[in-house]
């Protein structure tokens, strides 16, 4: 296995980390409107991810930075090619971060309501658009001989990619609902479980369609295995939440995300961004990568830093392992 293959795997791992972690906090954002019945319940939900969402988002920054360093051509083509969707995602992430931090900093109802709307939309839109983006990457986009994207914004809105978007949206929301049932107590927990069940079934239908489409179109033996893992885990997650095993359900919905993302990356390899115009023009792990020297340095850095990051991020989850309910929200806190 050459270093650029290693980095292909590492970038897949970073995206898995990102979607696993920010997946549930996007889901929580969406659920503030679907699940919470009042302001206090909204705050309960927001506070389940309060200490961790910022750290979760860094997985995206790391995926971006690592792509820049390990596959500059991929980074350049992807980010300049998907210009407008990326712009929308960036704006959502800006507003979302500020919304979490500022929402409770003023007592006025209008102030808080505005930020609550912001949290909902800026969680929903990226959750949808990431799926659209990955759908397009897997499907292949119009890349010319100079590795430039020559399609337009509307080319990105094809049925396959949109289905991909709906899958990430529902899957993340399901993942978030399971997380909510794992992290809350009282009435909201009961409703979170019920909602997770419903969301799980919708997710299952959409995801099955998307994954089968992907497998039929691009798949091989390895991707089939990943697909089976994803589907089995999803069914398991739904069954586990049904019988009230929230921890198991969360682990399984996480595995679903990991396996589905792994499947997409497996169907890509050795391409990183296939061209729909001419196979020769596709970006691959070899023609898009950095020099072996850069990859070597990066491998050292990742090899040392990643275990440490995983260690202290896990520790954070452990420190904040207690469930929260409406009784934990102080009225005057801000």
């Amino acid at each position: 296995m050459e270093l650029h293959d290693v980095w292909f795997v590492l970038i897949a791992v970073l995206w898995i980390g990102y979607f696993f972690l920010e997946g549930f906090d996007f889901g929580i954002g969406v659920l503030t409107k679907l699940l919470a019945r009042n302001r206090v319940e909204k705050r309960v939900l927001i506070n389940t991810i309060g200490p961790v969402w910022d750290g979760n988002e860094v997985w995206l920054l790391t995926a971006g930075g690592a792509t820049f360093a390990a596959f500059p051509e991929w980074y350049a083509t992807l980010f300049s090619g998907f210009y407008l969707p990326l712009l929308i995602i960036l704006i959502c992430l800006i507003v979302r971060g500020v919304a979490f931090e500022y929402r409770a900093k003023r007592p006025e109802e209008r102030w808080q309501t505005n930020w609550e709307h912001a949290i909902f939309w800026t969680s929903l839109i990226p959750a949808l658009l990431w799926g659209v983006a990955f759908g397009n990457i897997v499907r292949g986009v119009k890349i010319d001989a100079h590795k430039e994207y020559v399609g337009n914004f509307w080319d990105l809105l094809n049925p396959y990619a949109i289905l991909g978007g709906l899958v990430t949206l529902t899957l993340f929301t399901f993942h978030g609902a399971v997380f909510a049932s794992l992290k809350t107590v009282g009435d909201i927990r009961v409703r979170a479980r019920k909602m997770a069940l419903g969301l799980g079934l919708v997710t299952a239908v959409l995801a099955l369609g998307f994954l089968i489409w992907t497998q039929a179109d691009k798949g091989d033996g390895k991707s089939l295995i990943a697909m089976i893992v994803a589907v089995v885990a999803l069914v398991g997650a739904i069954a586990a939440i049904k019988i009230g095993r929230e921890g198991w359900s969360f682990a399984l919905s996480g595995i679903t995300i990991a396996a589905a993302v792994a499947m997409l990356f497996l169907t890509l390899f050795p391409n990183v961004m296939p061209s729909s115009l001419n196979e020769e023009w596709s970006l691959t792990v070899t023609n898009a990568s950095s020099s072996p020297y850069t990859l070597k340095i990066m491998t050292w850095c990742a090899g040392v830093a990643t275990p440490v990051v995983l260690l202290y991020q896990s520790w954070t989850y452990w420190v904040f392992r207690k469930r929260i309910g409406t009784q934990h929200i102080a009225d005057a806190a801000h």
Partner: protein
Amino acid sequence: MDLALAPETLARWQFGITTVYHFLFVPLTISLAALTAILETAWVRTGKEHYLRATKFWGKLFLINIAMGVVTGIVQEFQFGMNWSDYSRFVGDIFGAPLAFEALIAFFFESTFIGLWIFGWDKLPKKLHCATIWIVSIGTVLSAYFIIAANAFMQHPVGYKIVERDGTKRAELTDFAKVLFQETTIVNFAHVISAAILVGGAFMTGIAIFHLRKKQHVRTMRMSMRLGLVTAFVGTLLTVISADTLGKVMYEQQPMKMSAAEALWETEKPAPFSLFAYGDVSKGHNDVAIEIPGILSFLAKNNFNAEIPGINDLNKEAQEKFGPGDYRPNIPTAYWSYRWMIGFGGVSMVLCTAGLWLTRKKFWLAPEHRTGADDVPKLMLTKKRELTPKLGKWWWRLSQWTLIFPLIGTAWGWIFTETGRQPWVVYGVLRTEDAVSPGVSQGEVLTSLIAFTLIYAILAVIEVKLLLKYIKKGPPELTEADLNPPTKIGGPGAGKGSDSDSDDDADRPMAFSY
């Protein structure tokens, strides 16, 4: 296509606006993180309540700032790919590495431990809680280091070779240690960190003065003011020292930038320092010039008689080396941004030195100026050494607003260093016009430029209002829970020991919630 709306121009405006905006929060974040960490350490070590109140107060302002710093930082990382894809292709091999290091080593630190700090007041023993803010602080500094290493490569490329692959040229890394530890990186880092210290010190001083003027929270604010003044003073000293070193390095590496900063058109020996110049760029000379002879030679080369190359000669030299073209940056921008940087920095230096002098111990403790332990000392000095009361009042009021001077100075500093490098994006290697995304349309860049500018403007209003609200509110009153943090990880009440308590404590409200 209208040049004013060419994608390159728009992309440059976008980069300028987003970067300067982002950098308003960066120096504040760096210094406030460290100051908050120092204050919390003082609380942990001494147990004095005013340190805890100060920690909570300055920590809150720090959080309001870092939220903006973080979200605007995301844009910084992604716009290289969006607007500058040919740049990314050309230098990704080198430039991407420090960015990835920054994310892996610094961002994860910052963002994970900030969560622990914000929500951990009732979950972590106080020493551990204090350690989390120190880790955040280290994260902010590391982050600055990696980003400055990347920027220094653009100013002074080292440790690379140009390689041809698939018919296109790109730069490949040959020595990462050189990129990370070259002189340019170290000197720039020293300058940026010093300026950040100054920014935070001035910010703290200005706000402390506001409260002292109103005679409220005196104990906390008097301590904060002294801490702010000392910080600002140290910052300003370090800024000047690093500026001097940086100037000399720049004269070796980027003489065009420095001569543009002085509007020095012709090579001179000795060269004067320009106080005011107004000139004709197309003709390449100054119509008006007020100068101090010999000073520039000294600043650049430590020798009052050294020869300093002028813009016109440097331009000719560059044309011989790189082919026909205009190799001058925008001279008025370089000239004036340099002056605004130094001006705001210099005024801050005078102010914090004066402040430190005026608030030195005997003035604070002079018995005739005191009525009680927590009273505001009269800064408005009458009798022999004192200014008139009226002037004194204005002195206070004005000094409160000087808190933003260093911030303005740092913004101009970035504008200077980035425009002074033009027309190069990587000095002497890649032109800015060759760095833009070829596939991105004018409409797309215009859309994002407008979108970011609008949203940044709205957020600026929100942020300033919020800051003002919390500044006016002052340090919080402490509660029982604040003063008795848990002794065991996982509180609340984890420290109470017996299990019978835990049921009551399980329903205790969180010390902090969104």
